[in-house]
């Protein structure tokens, strides 16, 4: 009996250790879609983001164009210029996106439907080394317990933060925190916007995505073909 107890204890310990190792980082793999598409960002408590007066003026102008049905006046995505980060994941036109994690937890790819854009995130845990501004910015990240935290910098200032044309400067710093919820059926993303040239203080918003059924595939989207436009 003594031997059996020892073996049982050892086996239980091993199982627990093994399970612990496997569950070290959550599995975000899958195809996700925003639950409530966002046209105009709000803060965590549902209020308007703290734009400074100059930025607010620009944003109001664009919102007026949008209300007048004149989105083409300011939104270059209608000419297939990239929708950019972080907008593509939560824009009404963004479509589903997939997250793929490599086996060694060194990198993550976000594959968006909209015009087949992709974003590579390297899990170095260091500050991004920004080569130059881009449409999906430069992101590095690390796991903190069960949260994936991404530091994002180097975003083109021609990219809007939402479909209403929210502006930002090239010095914008985003912190994106991803956490599974709803027993893995939901993915919460908290985004922190830090851009003293645009906002009077850093602020946060939260977006929730739902997992699409297993086997869902990202469809090929060719913006110029879909909108029947010549690339610029």
């Amino acid at each position, binding site marked *: 009996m003594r031997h059996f107890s020892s073996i049982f204890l050892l086996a239980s310990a091993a199982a627990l250790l093994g399970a612990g190792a496997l569950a070290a980082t959550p599995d975000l793999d899958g195809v996700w879609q925003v639950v409530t598409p966002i046209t105009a960002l709000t803060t965590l408590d549902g209020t308007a983001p703290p734009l400074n007066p100059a930025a607010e003026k620009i944003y109001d102008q664009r919102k007026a164009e949008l209300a007048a049905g004149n989105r083409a006046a300011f939104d270059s995505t209608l000419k297939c210029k990239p929708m950019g980060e972080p907008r593509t994941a939560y824009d009404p036109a963004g479509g589903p996106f997939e997250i793929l994690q490599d086996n060694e937890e060194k990198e993550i790819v976000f594959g968006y439907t909209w015009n087949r854009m992709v974003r590579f995130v390297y899990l170095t845990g260091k500050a991004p080394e*920004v*080569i130059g501004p881009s449409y999906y910015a430069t992101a590095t990240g690390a796991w903190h317990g069960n949260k994936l935290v991404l530091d994002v910098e180097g975003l083109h200032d021609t990219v809007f933060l939402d479909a209403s044309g929210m502006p930002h400067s090239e010095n914008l710093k985003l912190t994106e925190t991803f956490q599974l919820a709803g027993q893995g059926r939901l993915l919460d993303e908290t985004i922190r916007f830090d851009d003293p040239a645009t906002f009077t203080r850093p602020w946060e918003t939260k977006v929730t995505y739902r997992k699409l059924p297993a086997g869902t595939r990202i469809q090929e989207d060719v913006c110029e073909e879909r909108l029947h436009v010549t690339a610029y």
Partner: protein
Amino acid sequence: MVSEIDMVKRQSGLLFVNKKKQKNFVNLEFVFTGLSAVGSDLIEQKFFAAFFQKRCFLPVLLVLIAAGIASPPPAQAHHSNSAYDRTRNETVAGTVIEFKWANPHTWLYLMVPDGKGGSDRWSFEGGSVSVLARNGWRASSIRPGQHVRVICQPNRNGSDGGGFIKVIFDDGSSLHIGVI
């Protein structure tokens, strides 16, 4: 505050200098400024006084025109339709207007003195973002206002510019294109 040069010009009633740069125009103000830098106040006063006396005006003007005509033209020839003359390199010194970090080619715009007191805008095309980035370049590597020397393969059609392959900064450091 009115400069001494302006005062002399106003007194003589002769506003000869065209402040806006024009190609192929001898910018007299540049010459005046150069002399001021070199000579003493006394020489300067005597020079301006002499120049603006009408009896001296014509001989000096003839000298200046002769100097302008004798100035060598830019050493560029017209060749075939291929973009750049890959058989030679040129080093162009100037001040950065803009460094455009874009795909598939980066662009570098320079203000280059034309040898006649004015300056021309030169346009240089470079490698793609990924090629340059993998050779140590960054969007912030070159900034407006910096004085640089650009090594290029000059435009075959003789226009101001070419394909840039290296940039040398005033402190001696440099960045160049390379394989990846």
